[in-house]
């Protein structure tokens, strides 16, 4: 979060925008544009979809600015919108995915990867993962291995630094559950990153 964020509260900027101040919205958008885009990219693992969804998130903010009553923080409201759109997108993708793409590649591979997992995924190729030692690609690959419910908590916490109470409001689960998910996510990520480190060391 930018240090200038505390100069004028998000809620006040939104109120000013509702009153007709386009520059107030510009300042608000500038505070959250990278965080929201990052959250969506990491959630959907589809950059083009993330662009569309980011536009859609802020379009909703523009359209509903007058409806925001300030009963919650703007960031909580914004991430609620973002999360709902990501869930809708995920459902659409699951519906569109062809059945044959979900089937195991071979009949004897009951628990094996499907063709869709190998073809439709935007994940980096395994060999590329091993070769890559940048923080971004390592985190990208590691996050892909984290379950969705843990990933969204981790992203809200680490990207936007929302409090666990705020995340609990956005996700709609108790705060302790949010913390548990966060810890599970951290453990998985730590393990995945350690494996990548080992692979890089072996490849080197």
């Amino acid at each position, binding site marked *: 979060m930018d240090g200038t964020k505390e100069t004028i509260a998000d809620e006040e900027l939104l109120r000013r925008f509702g009153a007709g101040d*386009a520059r107030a919205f510009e300042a608000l*958008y500038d505070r959250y544009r990278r965080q929201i885009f990052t959250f969506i990219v990491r959630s959907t693992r589809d950059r083009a979809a993330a662009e569309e969804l980011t536009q859609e998130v802020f379009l909703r903010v523009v359209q509903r600015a007058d409806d925001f009553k300030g009963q919650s923080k703007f960031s909580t409201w914004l991430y609620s919108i973002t999360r709902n759109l990501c869930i809708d997108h995920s459902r659409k993708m699951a519906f569109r995915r062809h059945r044959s793409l979900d089937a195991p590649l071979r009949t004897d591979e009951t628990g094996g990867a499907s063709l869709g997992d190998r073809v439709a995924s935007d994940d980096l190729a395994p060999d590329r993962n091993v070769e890559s030692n940048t923080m971004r690609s390592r985190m990208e690959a590691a996050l892909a291995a984290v379950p969705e419910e843990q990933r969204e908590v981790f992203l809200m916490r680490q990207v936007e630094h929302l409090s666990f109470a705020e995340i609990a409001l956005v996700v709609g689960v108790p705060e302790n559950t949010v913390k548990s998910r966060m810890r599970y996510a951290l453990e998985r990520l730590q393990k995945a990153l350690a494996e990548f480190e080992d692979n890089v060391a072996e490849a080197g």
Partner: protein
Amino acid sequence: MTCDECENRWLELIAGELPPDEGAGLREHIAGCATCSHGFAELESAMNAVGDVPLEEPPARVDDAVMRAARAKVAGMDPAAAMRGAAADQAGFFASLAQRWSRFVAGPQVAMATVMVLVVAIGVWYLPHADLRAPMEGETLIAPDDTSAAPGSAGATPVEEASEKGASAEPMASAESFDQRKLEAQEIPTDDLKAPSGRARRAATDSLAMDEGVTNALSDGLVNDGLARKKSRKSMVGDDMLFDFEGDSDAQRYGGGGSGLGGVTANASTRASASGAGARDEAPAAPAPTKASSELATTASQLFTEARSLAASGRCADAVKVYGALLSNYPTFASRALAYDEQATCYRKLGQTSLALAAEQNAKSVRATESKVAAKRAASRPAAAEPAAALDAE
């Protein structure tokens, strides 16, 4: 403070979000508790290993679209429309559109619909042109040109004989050839009989290779033949099959391009069987003469008369052509054997002995077939006459 209460605050403690006094209390508990100390160290290690998530920079087109929507809202306009408009102005619009489109067309429903549309489109395009395609293999075996080919060739072989022998495909193919010519002639409106269309004229002229006068006469005959078939259609099963192939409408052709040959074959065989049953009239296979079939009889007779007059006047070359047209297009003409004999005579006068012999052979074949048909009739008559005889006896 219990271990559970302590563990519940580890994340905030690591993030430095707890008030100083509360944080100090937690650290005191952790330092004195081996279980919490171990767990907290692991969590702190994981947090340090993972760290923050690197932020991604959205493209400028996203920023433009969002800000255009915001300005539209302030201006009292529709922000969604403004955002879409911004997207349309963006350089990457086509890439985005292509991606949306690719997602849409990747669905199985779209693929199936596309295949179906293609199949229907190809069918609609191909079938109306089916009669214009190159002759099929069976058709190339035919020598429809009666003026250049020997009259005794397969094209002039009586259909009845072919049917009974059941060996040669050529007579059937020959019948198909005639049927196709008739099909084209049928498409000529009756009013245009005196001035046949180019297509009908070309079909008659090309396929029969006759001179102009004979072509006109033949066209008249073919058209009348077609009319007669239409009028007697319901009463003739065999000709129904013929019409199914010959295509009164395109819809009948869409029934299957592959059925065309089958239809022709069936037509040839049914016509042969109708003829074999004794339907000896100029209107092929007509069980009961109608007005149209009478007209056909007149036309065939006219051709016969014209051929005879040409022969009598010494124009044997013309005569054999007219005989050929008569025999080719009226396979059920009652006096076929006689016509073959007279054609053979003309050939002999022209010095074409081999053709004369072939014509004589055809005459013999026709007579042999007629004899067989007559024998069959005679064999079936007593059985039919028995009840009548019994009644007479009573």
